[in-house]
């Protein structure tokens, strides 16, 4: 039997064929699955998703790392907010950012998301989410989406301070920090009736076609580097075209404007905004609008102020709390509280993904969420004991509920492992000191 990747039109057909009420998210219909609910009737595996979930300013390694390795691990201090989803966690500890010299936040974020360094204000190689998007995102309505909770930043020019998703050098995917803009982009068309959409879309299509013809005229006149830049633009147009051809059928989550959630203008990364971003992402995953995402909870070196956690937290989290609070890597209590808040926000996302049924499991079963930061211990920009947490079971590829210890191993190795878990089939990943040609052994 001919098999095709799942797309929206196909799902829509399935939906109408079964006459099911539109109680969405209902991304994968039982009628489209095999008897066990573990794969599509035609034998394709269930959809898998990948997301990078990034937070700035690092952790306190002795309080982040679980003490016992293996299956009998216990949650550490800083992972305690994730107790509800412990069985979905794979903690990978001991990894090292191998880039020599100073590892500041721009380089740290490049190392942990791309496995490469920084050159001319930019990452040099694609980030893990984009490697995965090339493998599993191309037939989605959105090849990947980039979201953010707080845009608090030190204000430097580096793209690696403002984005954790990169298609390559000088090709950042900046996160969208406005929940309403995310909502409009992902779900804005959900309520439009399909009746006369086709004609309108055909007209829009001709507008896009004209741009493609113009771009192809220009291509021949350009040098290699500029031609590649124009090709990236064309790639964006193609994704728009594809979307026109794939009407969505998804009951949208609450409109952020209606429920009074706006972007974070006070640099506080509050739980409510994070919750909204998590909701938007969860429904986008559940409806199969996209299979790849990145979420910036806080940017590298974020100058965030967690004053909502208590009057004594009303200081610059990067400058004052991480860098100048007294204490060693186990005793900076205000840093600890910031990390706990971060993990609480992560926990809400993971629980939401778990609450969305899919086949005989849930969306979190079929997802791999890669959680990391721009430094290990922020105070001294430490490069060892990097925070790496994998959540979700990646469609059964990960068993979860394990602490995997890999002391001294190159941080890029976990990127390599994840890339291949998600089907990217890479043989090398990263660049310079971050270049690896193998993953972590005995990992899955």
């Amino acid at each position: 039997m001919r098999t095709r990747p799942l797309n929206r039109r196909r799902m829509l057909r399935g939906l109408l064929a079964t006459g099911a009420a539109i109680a969405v998210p209902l991304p994968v219909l039982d009628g489209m699955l095999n008897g066990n609910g573990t794969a599509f009737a035609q034998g394709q595996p269930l959809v898998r998703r990948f997301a990078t979930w990034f937070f700035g300013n690092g952790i306190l390694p002795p309080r982040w790392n679980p003490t016992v390795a293996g299956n009998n691990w216990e949650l550490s201090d800083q992972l305690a907010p994730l107790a509800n989803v412990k069985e979905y966690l794979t903690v990978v500890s001991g990894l090292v950012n191998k880039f020599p010299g100073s590892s500041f936040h721009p380089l740290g974020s490049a190392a942990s998301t791309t496995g490469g360094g920084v050159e001319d204000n930019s990452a040099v190689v694609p980030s893990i989410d984009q490697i995965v998007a090339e493998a599993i995102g191309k037939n989605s309505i959105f090849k990947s989406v980039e979201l953010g909770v707080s845009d608090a930043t030190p204000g430097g020019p580096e793209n690696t301070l403002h984005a954790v998703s990169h298609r390559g050098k000088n090709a950042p995917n900046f996160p969208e920090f406005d929940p309403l803009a995310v909502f409009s982009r992902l779900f804005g068309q959900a309520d439009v009736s399909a009746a006369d959409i086709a004609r309108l879309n055909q007209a829009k299509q001709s507008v896009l076609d004209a741009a493609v013809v113009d771009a192809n005229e220009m291509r021949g006149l350009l040098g290699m580097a500029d031609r590649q830049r124009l090709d990236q633009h064309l790639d964006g147009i193609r994704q728009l075209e594809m979307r026109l051809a794939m009407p969505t059928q998804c009951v949208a989550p609450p409109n952020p404007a209606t429920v009074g959630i706006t972007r974070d203008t006070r640099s506080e990364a509050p739980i409510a905004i994070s919750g909204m971003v998590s909701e938007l992402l969860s429904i986008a995953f559940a409806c199969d609008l996209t299979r790849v995402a990145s979420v910036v909870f806080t940017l590298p070196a974020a100058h965030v102020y967690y004053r909502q956690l208590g009057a004594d937290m009303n200081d610059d989290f990067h400058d004052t709390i991480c860098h100048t609070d007294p204490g060693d890597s186990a005793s900076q209590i205000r840093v600890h509280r910031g990390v706990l808040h971060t993990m609480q926000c992560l926990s809400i996302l993971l629980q939401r993904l778990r609450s969305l049924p899919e086949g005989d499991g849930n969306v979190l079963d079929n997802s791999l969420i890669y959680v990391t930061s721009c430094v290990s211990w922020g105070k001294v920009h430490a490069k060892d004991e990097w925070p790496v947490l994998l959540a979700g079971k990646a469609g059964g590829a990960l068993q979860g509920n394990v602490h995997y210890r890999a002391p001294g191993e190159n941080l890029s190795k976990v990127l390599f492992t994840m890339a291949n878990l998600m089907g990217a089939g890479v043989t090398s990943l990263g660049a310079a000191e971050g270049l690896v040609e193998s993953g972590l052994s005995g990992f899955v």
Partner: protein
Amino acid sequence: MADPSQAAGEFGPGKGTLKRLTDSEFRNSLRDLLGDVTVGELEPDSWSDGFAKVGSSVVSISANGVDKYQLAIDAATAQVFADATRRAALVGCEPQVADDACVDAFIARFGRSSWRRPLTEAQVQRYGELARSTATLLGDVTEAVRLTTNALLFSPYFLYRMERGQADPSSSWWRFNSYEMAARLAYFLANTTPDATLLDAAERDGLATAEGVRGQAERLLGSVSGRESIGNFATELFRLAIVRTRAKDPERFPTYTSTLQSAMAREVPAMFESLVFDERAPALDLFTTRRTFVNRELASLYGLDATGLTDESWAAVDLPPDGLRAGLLGTGAFLSVYANQKEGSPTQRGKFIREFLLCQQIPPPPPNVSTVIEDPPPGVVLTKRERLAAHRSQPVCASCHSAMDPLGLPLENFDAIGAFRETEQGREIDTTGDLDGVPFDGPIGLGKLLSTSDRASACLVRNLYRYAAGRSEIATEEPVIEALVERFRTNGFDMQGLMLDVVSSDGFRYVAAPEL
């Protein structure tokens, strides 16, 4: 960034570029092409070598960025076409059928303005066909013309400036053709699309000579839109877009509002424009001038009489001649950006002065250095100067901090939003500092030193040249930059003269032949 020490003896031009319009270039161009329209959010600019205009020649757009163009363009043309008068003014007729000749005429005319050169016949025909097929599909000629307008604006011919040049029989280098030069002049000197006069000059090939270029540049600088040459240069150079994104502690600074932030971001370009265009004063007076512009909130912040002002008003004022506030270093924009939410940052302020005003790079702290500054013993209140003494007593820190802190600490009379304060934690503020061994006192002393600094004037020229080129300068352009620096000095730091010298220089007019 080119290293001046590697300056080759002989000039050679830089490579051609493909520049995507920056956020402000796109907005201003739509305004000029369509009239006043509200333009939605775009992908943020990327900053390379200090400028969005440089980032626009190296960075690729994301899929989300392409979406945003489509949405912004569609929303902008919808505003114009919803109004019959504006629609008629733009299209030039009310076509009843799509094969009306006026549709093709509109495509040719609007295409030339938006693509900054004439369309080929084939292109006019292709877009005409788009209009006709869309009209048939939708049964709505007006909407078809609007979508055709969208298409012309969504085209990479509008969104990108392709500047390759052409062979020049009189030179071994290639030279930008007249249409490319019209766009280079317009986006450098007015930060917008070329006006009709420029396009007409290009049509006559009137921008092939240095004299022709200089003549048009003089015209632009004499027009209202020419003020944007300084306005947008200052906005990019001093990263003023950041001002509006900064948050401050709401309890400590209840007067810090979004309208105050907007006024701060607007003040610096206004101050610089006034110097250059109204007073024709030396550019380095930017560090000493007492003439500035305020709304009510900014006047209050500066302790000025705000009578008659509102949050929306905008007025020229003179700061008190004996006060500590003058020039760029006294602006709320500079003082509030280089500060955290509660306190000014002497280190960040000093770093800005080194990097943006003196073109000196400060390396990041060495690896595994603890950046901890120990808290004082209980009951002891230290000033920032005392706390930061550790920066200068430890050799590993002092190598860089001794270049930054002594420039920022003398500005401690200004708090995290730039308000004046007499004391720090109840103690008098020591405002002494030194710039490379030359002692000074306070912001006024520092401003005076900068206004006569050779390094500051050379840095300003380098920044302007890079901004005009829209790419990082290369080593073989150093002879041109050196000559510009020399003329700038002998001309009494005349900024308009410098801009004219830049556009008529070989560096601005010539381009390396493309590599095959």
